[in-house]
């Protein structure tokens, strides 16, 4: 499997560290209720199909990257820097539990 780092280009999967669903880059605000933290840390849509997950280019440029990937076929689609996705949401964004979270996701490093 190869992932395309927006800065370095196509690289071997072994250069990257996986951090799970990209929801992990959308940390709730400090005033968020405990349920929002539980959803952020633990609960996952865990989709069979397209997902967006968070990878860290550990042995490359140290960028945090959101990768659109298919969990059934392993096809890798678009990638973008977390720093450039703004308030973009991860796979769990549409679910009821997630909506409880205040709309203050912080981009950048989780």
């Amino acid at each position, binding site marked *: *499997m190869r992932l395309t780092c927006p800065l370095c280009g196509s690289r*071997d*999967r*072994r250069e990257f*560290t*996986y*951090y*799970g*669903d990209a929801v*992990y880059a959308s940390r709730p605000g400090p005033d968020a209720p*405990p*349920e929002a933290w*539980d*959803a952020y*840390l*633990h*609960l*996952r*849509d*865990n*989709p*069979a199909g397209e*997902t967006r*997950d968070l990878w860290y280019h550990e042995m490359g440029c140290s960028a945090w990257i959101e990768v659109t*990937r298919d*969990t*059934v*076929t*392993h096809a890798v689609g678009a990638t973008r820097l977390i720093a450039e996705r703004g308030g973009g949401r991860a796979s*769990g964004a549409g*679910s*009821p*539990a997630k909506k409880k979270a205040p709309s203050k996701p912080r981009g950048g490093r989780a």
Partner: protein
Amino acid sequence: MRYSGFRVLTEGLSGNKGWRPVWRDPAPKPDYDIVIIGGGGHGLSTAYYLAKNHGLTNIAVLEKGYLGGGNVGRNTTIVRANYFLPGNQEFYSHSLKLWEGLESELNYNVMHSQRGLINLFHSDGQRDAFARRGNAMVGQGDDAELLDREGVRRHLPYLDFEQTRFPIYGGLLHRRGGSARHDAVAWGYARGADGRGVDLIQNCEVTGIDITGGRVTGVQTTRGAIRAKKVGIIVAGRSGQVAAMAGMRLPVESHILQAFVTEGLKPVIDHVVSFGMGHFYISQSDKGGLVFGGDLDFYASYAARGNLPMVEHVMEAGMTLMPMIGKAKVLRSWGGIMDMTPDGSPVIDKTPVEGLYIDCGWNYGGFKAVPASGWCMAHLMATGESHAYAGRFRLDRFATGHLLDEEGTGSQHNLH
């Protein structure tokens, strides 16, 4: 139909014409007291113990494929009770005791072989940790022996003890650990449940869960609607999708774990050997194949196949530990879908929906748990109360902070 040596003999002398299908193939009825979603090891053992321990037999097990066609039919078959944390210890200890009586219980040869499990250690610190784990196992009433390097050498003379990266300091021997025939466990429980009146319904995929007023009322399937007073979700790697039918998100992310089998060889590895530092473990099946595996590929996946970097890593670890296996040819490999929880421990609990129960999150260790998981899930579904051995496998433990982090690596999805 009871199996016995006498029966094998008489069938053999009469052309083996008397054998019959081991379970029925019933059409689903419109109504059951209990519906179990998932005809794998855990689902079948739950159905069996609901019938055996609680006298409930108006039960259907719904399986979208064939019985035992998921993880219970493709795993590395290790059976052990070497857990450290209260909450895990008593559960896995109970499971091992059930394994020890399983063949006479089910009248089925599950080929349970207590050949001994050795976990290797490679530093003074690791020795201390294993000594502590061993004491905890003995305290629980199970067995453990701490071996020094010479002690390991007596059991496993073929290891490379002087390897520079991880020289072997010793090992923790768990004599009652071993392996079993994976398919046979599913078949044995299926036969036992069927014989007690449970309907095992194959090629029946659940497509929806009916909920009225916060209470489960049945399921929608590819073979029609089925009403039920209670429903159990026991679907391992597919837990996320089935729970979503009930509007739930779970603390589960599904990952791939690869495993490998070589061509059949003469007996060469007598134990189950676990090389944690190299992420490698191995045993030899009764057919002679070396069965081995490593760590997760470490990304969410339902592909049921892995990628080459982990294949290479596992082969390297195997060669580091026991160079003699280098001449064996790998026959096949596969990837199982593991329902990983953030803390690496399972869930056997009620859900927020009345009458809906869930048994999931077995990570990469579900096989040995099959008997106790069914035992405790059956208790929960029959009585509404958690079994004492599974009381800490709560669905809400991540929210409340009552984690069961056996590895001590933290409660985060990418760590287990």
